[in-house]
């Protein structure tokens, strides 16, 4: 494949993964942080969104780490799911 096209695909794919996560986190954090929409985003709500993003990523990392640990101890995920 054209190397320019290859790089383009990689760059755009990464950009899309970013965009998708922003869509997803905005959605989820809106539910947690937004009361009645007002004339502007007050600082408390803005802080909530920032915290929400950080905690969402923490959650994702936590799950990956724990999954890795559980797999080392107890075999595969599907095994530990079968009870």
């Amino acid at each position, binding site marked *: 494949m054209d190397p320019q096209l290859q790089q383009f695909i990689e760059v755009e794919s990464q950009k899309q993964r970013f965009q998708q996560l*922003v*869509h997803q986190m905005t959605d989820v954090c809106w539910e947690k942080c937004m009361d009645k*929409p007002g004339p502007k*985003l007050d600082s408390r709500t803005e802080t909530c969104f*920032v915290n*929400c993003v950080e905690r969402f990523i923490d959650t994702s990392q936590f799950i990956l780490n724990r999954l890795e640990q559980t797999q080392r101890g107890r075999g595969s995920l599907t095994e530990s799911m079968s009870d």
Partner: protein
Amino acid sequence: MDSFGSDFSSGAAESGKMDPGTIMEQVKVQIAVANAQELLQRMTDKCFKKCVGKPGGSLDNSEQKCIAMCMDRYMDAWNTVSRAYNSRLQRERARI
């Protein structure tokens, strides 16, 4: 936001100008369109939930006002999330 009204299908194929540059530009436009659609879909969902109670025969003035504000707040939220996520990614990369 890129314009998404124009039609790119006929010209390039007919004149044979499907070089990588043209393809990349077209793909970028399509990606931008897809992102705009996703944003609008989620915004509509959220603002309908926040602003429209029991659906009446039309959207009354207060509902319209609420939806307008909601749109702006959703954009603010989206931008805040985008910035926060970007910061976090940069922090993570700095650790490695």
